[in-house]
């Protein structure tokens, strides 16, 4: 009882990356707390899920497998989670901060009157002393997240309500195999006894989900452009550099809003979080919202006409000048020196 639960998102039979990242984090928190790590998978044809999650250290996998649950729907998924949490009373529940997790999480937290913290960037176990009530809480989940446009970092706690719920964006936590022969117990959920006809009042008529075309998150090198790139034409230079270095192209929100790059390439607090080996920021001033999505990069090069752009403060190398001038020089230098 009072274990740590992770809701696993399933995309075409595969557990989503963000869920595996949460299992990795959940495993280490569960070990620290001395409790079990339990995973929840809802969907259809889920026989293969246990093989995917067990190596991440999952002790118990709850499976709700039903034809009508193939694609995410708010009400039936909520009913299943609420039923499960009411019976198992988790102390912590983690979800991905995806369109699914951010639809499901608040609904569950409202029904259970537990607290939910969105988009955490760090999860830590710690104690809390409530001086007013003269009470000490042991082993709470510190839910740490940027707030207020990223200008502050807040540590949120839920002292009295359970489960302590949090969502985390994809790419924020690391994904790591725990033990390839970890034993995982399977518990099947009797879907028909929980879900009612009324839960299907909203239904899907049509879905056009594209396969991931750009894999920015997995790219070791990202050449990223901001508003300072100036045009969609100039963005082609970034693609050239990325192609030569074997990287991907990213963009700041300002560049996406200006139509220089597609939305799926947006990096930052409202886009994707990345941690590549090398991040080349071209014409990006470095607003806090953008930095929140890339400041974990191992190395940062900034190319900017403004020597005082905030991005330069976190860059390992700053080149002051125009990208139309500098990128061709970089490509030439690389071609000359690489074997």
């Amino acid at each position, binding site marked *: 009882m009072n274990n740590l639960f992770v809701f696993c998102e399933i995309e075409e039979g595969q557990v989503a990356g963000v869920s595996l990242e949460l299992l990795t984090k959940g495993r280490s928190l569960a070990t620290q707390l001395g409790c079990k790590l339990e995973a929840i998978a809802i969907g259809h044809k889920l026989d293969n899920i246990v093989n995917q999650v067990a190596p991440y250290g999952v002790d118990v996998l709850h499976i709700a497998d039903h034809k009508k649950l193939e694609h995410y729907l708010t009400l039936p998924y909520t009913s299943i989670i609420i039923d499960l949490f009411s019976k198992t009373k988790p102390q912590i529940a983690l979800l991905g901060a995806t369109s699914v997790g951010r639809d499901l999480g608040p609904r569950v937290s409202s029904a259970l009157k537990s607290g*939910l913290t969105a988009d955490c960037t760090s999860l830590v176990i710690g104690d809390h002393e409530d001086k007013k009530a003269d009470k000490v809480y042991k082993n709470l989940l510190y839910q740490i997240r940027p*707030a*207020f446009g990223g200008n502050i970092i807040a540590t949120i706690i839920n002292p009295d309500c359970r489960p302590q719920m949090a969502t985390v964006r994809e790419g924020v936590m690391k994904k790591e195999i725990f033990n390839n022969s970890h034993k995982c117990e399977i518990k099947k959920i009797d879907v028909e006894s929980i879900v009612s006809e009324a839960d299907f009042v*909203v*239904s899907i008529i049509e879905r056009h989900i594209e396969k991931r075309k750009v894999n920015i998150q997995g790219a070791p090198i990202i050449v990223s452009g901001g508003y300072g790139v100036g045009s969609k034409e100039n963005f082609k230079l970034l693609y050239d550099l990325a192609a030569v270095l074997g990287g991907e192209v990213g963009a700041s929100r300002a560049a996406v809003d200006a139509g220089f790059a597609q939305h799926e390439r947006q990096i930052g607090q409202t886009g994707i979080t990345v941690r590549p080996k090398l991040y080349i920021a071209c014409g990006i001033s470095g607003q*806090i919202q953008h930095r929140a999505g890339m400041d974990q990069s191992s190395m940062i*090069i900034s190319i900017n006409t403004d020597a005082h752009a905030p991005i330069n403060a976190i860059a390992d190398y700053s*080149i002051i000048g125009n990208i139309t001038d500098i990128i061709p020089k970089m490509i030439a230098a690389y071609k000359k*020196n690489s074997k």
Partner: protein
Amino acid sequence: MSGLKIVVLAKQVPDTRNVGKDAMKADGTVNRAALEAIFNPEDLNALEQALRLKDRISGTTITMLTMGPIRASEIIREGLYRGADNGYLLTDRAFAGSDTLATSYAISKAIEKIGKFDIIIAGRQAIDGDTAQVGPQVAEKLGLPQITYAEEIIDVKGKEIIVKRRLERGVETVRGTLPLVVTVTGSAAECRPRNAKFTMKYKHARSTSELQNATEDFMQLYNSRPYLKLSELSVNDVDVDHEQLGLNGSPTKVKEIENVVLQAKESKVIGNNDQEIEEMIVELIKNHTIG
């Protein structure tokens, strides 16, 4: 078909792009008074979806509902300037310090007080917290279904609604049944500008609390035009359990607030010339960052 009754949930938010030093209070909550207040961007997208339904379906009425301090009356006026029909300001010190759950509770109680609605439309999330929780939580509290991440309300026919959702990697079209809650993303159509006629009509609209320093002339005008009165709800006007309001009703607490400080690295400045750029590239190849 008879008109729809729509309520638009809108929030006045601090413009988080410009946060000064004195923006935080000692208890970790935001000192909104120190910042410029704007109409939350995605709530404007939500308002536009409501206005489009009103354009299409005659007899449709739009009610604005906002929770916040007295100056949030501005949000209602902005809604009226664009074509909303009336509005409510939910304001009381008892709501201060609410997290998303306590906020949703207060809003759901206000909606129950105001009346029955076919569609409750809100922005997906507000820029001050980016949580995207209040929409779904209001839906849960009212026992209504929800459609989040809506990019377009495609059609409403009788009790049936068709909505296009914008997800991370594609779109999904769903069918639902009224009444329900819809939250709208920023990729939806932009909100129309203020309408000149409505702006003239409602520019003197005020909530009761805004009338404190009103002149006699203004009061005469105000009293002669009933549509200038913006409804105000305090905690006593809604049927609530006080334990579920404000800080008390918030399961999440702020333990600590830390200001973000730029960590200056040792940054090398590279000259914009062939030689220095080549030296940098060679260094990166050597330490296996590239190549």
